């Protein structure tokens, strides 16, 4: 079997191998309770990766996701008191709004997405620093439990975050497979000039992809702040690299057009297993980003479609 045919199956094969390795090294790993906790813990990262998938699927990238999540933890913490449950809507609006801004800069001003999202990410960081006064803020515990307590509760052994993740994944999968939006995003990723020549307003859909990415990063930030019961301008730092790794390891290449949200679900599980295995194997916390950096390089090198790249700069 040649490599090209094997390629689409690499993500889940990798996942199985990793699970097998960690499972044999540590016999508590495969216990259902442990696995459920493990997955529950990774949900904010998964949701961020889910959003990123849209940006990467069209051949772009969203480097603002982490800063966006930071900003949202601050926004959620500050406005929970005055807005109650409506703060969730505000969070998603801010995320989608900043995503739209990135999309607009990318499509109308022709600034490559890695720069435009880096720039909007900068705006998000400044905003969060300004809003928080550069301090770590805490939510009112009673109010948090009343409004968002359900998010982090459990039904039996199953953390509720998993349900949120499942619902969002289902919606994203529906959008990707069944809607015109999903179809256009695929066409843009696989062959934008042809999409344009088919009379499609490509820019509008690209902006939407960045808006979705921003909105989902916001939801990730919201759940994260509920979990930690507070917010700070750097609280979600360390999310971006694993989130990008999750998308790429899952099999959506930087060149876009193939893969998708289901791949990202598998990719996130790979990230979760790698992360836990590092605890089991006593790898220091400071070394984790290094491991993810290495995995990212390998994942890109393996998945990228070299036919679409003439030169790399």
């Amino acid at each position: 079997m040649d490599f090209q045919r094997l390629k689409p199956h690499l993500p889940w094969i990798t996942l199985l191998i990793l699970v097998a390795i960690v499972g044999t090294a540590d016999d508590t790993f495969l216990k259902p309770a442990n696995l459920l906790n493990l997955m529950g813990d990774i949900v904010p990262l998964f949701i961020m990766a889910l959003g990123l998938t849209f940006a990467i699927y069209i051949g772009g990238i969203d480097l603002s996701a982490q800063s966006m999540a930071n900003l949202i933890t601050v926004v959620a913490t500050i406005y929970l008191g005055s807005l109650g449950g409506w703060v969730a809507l505000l969070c998603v609006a801010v995320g989608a709004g900043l995503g739209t801004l990135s999309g607009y800069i990318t499509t109308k001003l022709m600034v490559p997405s890695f720069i435009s999202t880096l720039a909007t990410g900068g705006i998000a960081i400044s905003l969060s620093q300004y809003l928080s006064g550069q301090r770590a803020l805490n939510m009112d515990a009673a109010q948090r439990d009343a409004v968002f307590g359900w998010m982090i509760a459990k039904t039996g052994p199953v953390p509720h975050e998993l349900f949120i993740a499942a619902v969002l994944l289902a919606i994203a999968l529906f959008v990707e497979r069944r809607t015109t939006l999903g179809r256009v995003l695929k066409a843009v990723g696989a062959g934008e000039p042809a999409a344009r020549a088919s009379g499609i307003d490509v820019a509008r859909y690209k902006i939407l992809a960045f808006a979705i990415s921003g909105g989902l990063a916001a939801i990730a930030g919201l759940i994260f702040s509920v979990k930690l019961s507070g917010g700070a301008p750097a609280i979600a730092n360390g999310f971006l690299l694993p989130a990008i790794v999750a998308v790429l390891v899952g099999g959506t290449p930087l060149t876009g057009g193939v893969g998708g949200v289901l791949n990202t679900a598998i990719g996130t599980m790979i990230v979760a297993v790698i992360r836990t295995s590092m605890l089991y194997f006593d790898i220091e916390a400071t070394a984790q980003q290094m491991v993810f950096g290495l995995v990212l390089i390998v994942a890109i090198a393996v998945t990228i479609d070299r036919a679409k790249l003439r030169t790399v700069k």
Partner: protein
Amino acid sequence: MYQLSKVDKKFPGVHALKAVDFEVGRGEIVGLVGENGAGKSTLMKVIYGAYQPDGGQILMDGKSMRFANPRAAMEQGIGMVFQEQSLIANLTVMENIYLGYEQQFVRFGVINWKAMAEAARMQLAKVKLDIDPGRITSTLSFAQRQLVELAKVLTLEERVQGDLVILLDEPTSVLDEDEVKLLFKLVRELTSRASFIFVSHRMDEVMDLSDRIYVMKDGAVVDMVKRGEASVEAIQHKMVGRVVDKRYYREQRQVPYDASKVLAEMKDVKLPGRVAQIDLKLHAGEVLCLVGTEGSGREAILRTLYGMLTPLAGTVTLKGRTVTRFSPRGSVEAGMGYVPRERKVEGIVAGMNVHENMTLSQMGRHSTAGVFRIGGEKALARDWIARLSIKASSETADCGTLSGGNQQKVVLAKWRSGGSDILLLDHPTRGLDIGAKEDVYEMIRDMTDDGVGIILVADTLEEAIGLSHTIIVVKDGAIQKRFDCATGAKPSLFDLIHYMI
């Protein structure tokens, strides 16, 4: 002197070269013709060292050779003048000529530019090109760049012992008639220095220049004719295995168009660049062909009609409505379809399957509130796969894996299934084999029978004359002449060329 003996080359699923025998004598010009897919490119790649044959031998002066890569072949005196020019646009002419061979001019790690310019001037003199070697390549005309490319290959003369063999791949495809004449004159003079292998689609040119012609079909050399031994028709016959005549363009199916129904109109349109005063009318059932040389403004007119360019002045009217905002989206909504020249770039999306490609321009028709009705979409694709006999394993086959002809059929089906009745066809038969071309011609007649208006930029003049009801000759951004091409009263090639150049 240079000889291929029983050369074989196989790729997964394709037997690209079948025991090919090929020979080039000293100072000889050898033509190589064949339809697309006949194996010409593979043969050329074997000759200049990009492919290694699976069987047979490459002999030079009777000695068996094996080239690991093009550079190894170059060191034995085999050079290639590429069709897609291989010069780097932002380097100077001399840097391009000596790209990869600068070492000879290096003193103490620094290039002696004066020496390089001197040497480059000498090379340029061989091709009679009097330009400053320090000029940036992108400032040269296309024909000049072609000559620089040739000069670059001729540096082999100083570098290698023995004879030179130079491959010319479609060197005339974008040259005008005078430039072609000059190039041919030059090549004939250069036979004192090298042998040439000349590959072209233009049969008359191959006949004009070559001492001998190899005819390829299905990966094998089917014939070798000496100068003056065969007519164009006879060679074409051997290439395709049948006679190409008037019926080829389905002229018997041409019927007069409906002059009372104007689908699209351009009035005194001026475009960025130097295209001006464009007036034309497209009627229902008409094939209107824009004829002109590369850069004459045909593409600009086509792209303006499709909304990809916005005119500076004048009006464009589609079905009685004046266009105010130019966008492909608006044009598609007005019932227009565009079959681009770059099929693989703008025509199909590789990586998406047949039904996804077919409905890309008409998603609204197959969805409710943004959600696809995939069953209906697939049924439509199956229908059109059957109607156009598209060779695809199913409607879910990846379009990127289809052959050029079938990809083109998918693009045409995309527009026809959506009910487009104004079609812009930019080189619709480019790169297709004869059978696929005939299918496209047949479709064009089918469409005009249905009252579709077609604006065509044809691949060849013969095709333009054969297919069209009306020919508009464009030169230097202005309409030179309008020809009526009713069956039996078609203009000749000469009539057209007279206004083109």
